[in-house]
């Protein structure tokens, strides 16, 4: 399995009468995009804006962020948009340095904030991107669940469409990834420790879902996947998990652990597998998923595992249950988690734990607060603030600034370790 990822670096987005890219500029035809979104009869209207790094712009409440990608042949985002076929091989175009951001009236309660400048900007990777912001409103009669689906699909459709218009353009860089079968990997690097990535995704239902090849992940069992599929949009975020710990579609497409494993493959580790493991609410499911996940890892013959989580609290139990089983099988495990150590940082940071979890990377204390000044432009709906995780009654200050917890910032403590934030004890 071989995937060539052709990257086009987008340094600016400009509205135009045609959607295409040239010399680092992405041109967008607003009417085309608008028409594409409103093909979905559940949606009433859309406002399209551009938010660039350094702008005095706040986007709230953000539902998802998607990197525009398309296949040279066939479709990306299988099961979500276009023709459903196997992905993870062939040629894929990725528009780097830009993203499609969906916002609009609140769907669930846990959507996030992106500021394009000011103190919040360094907490979210999305402030560094040129963002095409879709502010979408649904028709009145549409239920919350339909609302979530319609907006999820709209974001993916637009990102896919834009990238498809850029396939003929000159690309800046190509990266080639190979995923060989296990027998070859074992022969290639017999002396390196075999590492598997346990890829946990939120699958709790009630607006806490992830989609794999379009399939709702709460209905699936843990399964072995090809990491290159993830680069092609096989995993799509469809959830309203608290913004800081949400794995957006962008995070899936650019999974930091997969990238890091590829970087070290053949040097320090033999990267032999990825197990996608749903995190559910029912206790029996947690047992079942932890049994099956650790058993797949064991059958692959792994020496070590990196485990990533999504969400916090209830999913921490899934994280710990799998870790316990892996360690008891003699498989060395490293976990990634954020912490809720309280506003004053004095609380026990994790809601669940096991003594086997002796190697954890922290992506930060999400209860810590941050004061953010007003922005000139608000895209979306600032009134959603009190209803998102990290916002609260009293968030608004007299001088127009806001006090929020890190939780509310989109991607602030991503549990795949995409960012630099971490907590330490002083």
């Amino acid at each position: 399995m071989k995937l060539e990822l052709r990257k086009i670096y987008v340094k600016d987005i400009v509205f135009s009468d045609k959607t295409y890219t040239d010399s680092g500029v992405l041109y967008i035809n607003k009417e085309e995009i608008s028409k594409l979104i409103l093909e979905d009869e559940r949606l009433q209207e859309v406002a399209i804006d551009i938010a660039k790094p350094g702008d005095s712009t706040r986007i709230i409440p953000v539902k998802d962020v998607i990197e525009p990608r398309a296949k040279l042949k066939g479709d990306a985002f299988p099961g979500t948009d276009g023709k459903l076929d196997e992905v993870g091989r062939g040629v894929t175009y990725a528009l780097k340095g830009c993203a499609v951001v969906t916002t609009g009236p609140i769907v669930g309660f846990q959507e996030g904030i992106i500021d394009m400048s000011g103190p919040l900007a360094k907490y979210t990777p999305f402030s560094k991107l040129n963002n095409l912001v879709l502010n979408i409103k649904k028709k009145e009669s549409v239920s919350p669940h339909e609302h979530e689906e319609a907006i999820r699909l709209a974001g993916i459709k637009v990102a896919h469409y834009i990238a498809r218009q850029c396939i003929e353009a000159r690309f800046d860089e190509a990266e080639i990834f190979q995923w060989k079968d296990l027998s070859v990997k074992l022969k290639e690097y017999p002396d390196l420790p075999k590492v598997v990535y346990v890829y946990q995704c939120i699958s709790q239902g009630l607006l806490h879902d992830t989609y794999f090849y379009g399939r709702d992940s709460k209905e699936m069992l843990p399964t072995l996947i090809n990491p290159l599929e993830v680069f092609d949009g096989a995993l799509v975020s469809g959830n309203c998990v608290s913004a800081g710990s949400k794995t957006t579609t962008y995070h899936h497409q650019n999974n930091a652990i997969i990238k890091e494993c590829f970087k070290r493959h053949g040097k320090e580790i033999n990267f032999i597998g990825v197990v996608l493991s749903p995190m559910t609410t029912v206790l029996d499911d947690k047992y079942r998923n932890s049994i099956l996940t650790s058993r797949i890892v064991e059958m692959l013959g792994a020496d070590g595992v990196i485990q990533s989580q999504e969400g916090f609290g209830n999913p921490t139990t899934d994280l710990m249950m799998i870790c316990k089983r892996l360690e008891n099988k003699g498989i060395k495990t490293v976990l990634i988690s954020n912490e809720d150590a309280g506003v004053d940082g004095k609380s026990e940071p994790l809601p669940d734990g096991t003594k086997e979890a002796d190697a954890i990377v922290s992506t930060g204390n999400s209860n810590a607060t941050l004061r953010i000044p007003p922005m000139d432009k608000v895209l979306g709906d600032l009134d959603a603030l009190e209803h998102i995780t990290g916002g609260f009654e009293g968030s608004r200050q007299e001088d127009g600034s806001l006090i929020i917890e890190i939780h509310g910032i989109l991607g602030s403590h991503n549990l795949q370790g995409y960012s630099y934030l971490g907590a330490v004890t002083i």
Partner: protein
Amino acid sequence: MKRILFYTNQFFGQIGGEEHANIPPRIEEGVVGIANLFKDKVEGKIVATIICGDNYYSENMEGCRAFLSKEVERLRPDLVIAGPAFNAGRFGMACGDVCSYINKKYGIATITGMYIENPAVEIYRSDTYIVETGKSAAFMRKAVSKMVALANKILRGEEIGLPEEEGYIPKGIRVNIFHQKTGAERALDMLVKKLKGEEYKTEIPIPTYDKVQAAKPITDLKKAKIALLTSGGIVPFGNPDHLPAATAKFYKKYPVSNIEGFAKGDYESVHAGYDPVYANENPNRILPLDLFKELERNGEIGSLYEFYFVTTGNSTSVADATRMGMEIAKELKEAGVDGAIMTST
């Protein structure tokens, strides 16, 4: 020049030994006793030295604090240095309280020095810098040099590094920093070390939790008073008390004696951790008040407590949850409640 206020006891203040442990606080302008060891090294002026007997401080804490307040407000120091107390218990408590009180009330930086096993360490370490010292005054020279180094960093307005770099006892406070490497890079670094059997350091210590002993079972349910609790965020419609959608730091109680269940439209969910559609259709799905009213009518339980308790259990810190749990349990016990049902989401 930055101003420093110094605190010490009867012994290091050169008044005398144990027989002077009952002297009330006094203030001397300038540098007295042990403060002399700091005088020429700190990048600031020691404007005054407060001396107080160790017994007096522990027996008259409020009075001593009032004395401190008066002097701090008069002298306006930039830094307070107390001790070092080494392993002395009462002196340690006094130094800890002086530093903690002044820091909390005035936001002025404070430093003391203690041996790691001094009982005051556990009580005050999160409120002040406690430089780790040896057991006794035999380690004075080293203690002074470590305290001076930290003091000068504070006086220069420099950022204070990690405990192991600066020599202070960890305050036990988690703070956010931006690392040079991403979480994924750090995770792979850690795994490679773990696989090689090399030393690595977890970034989150393995959690330890208080074990709560379960109450004895109820012997006769028909006589028992039962209370209903939920962390599912069910509140009267409109959320009159603004219970937060997540990371709630308080709980509320609302009467249930005059209703037979949670009617749709009268109650709603404000919890941000789940989709509230089904909860709002029928809030009894989160907390089954309707069923408990039925049990009460049928005499299957003695009675239902007249209030239900609610918070949003969503990214709540363990410390906040523990405090709320203790407060609720106290009230239930005082109200003669025999058993409680707590629903989560």
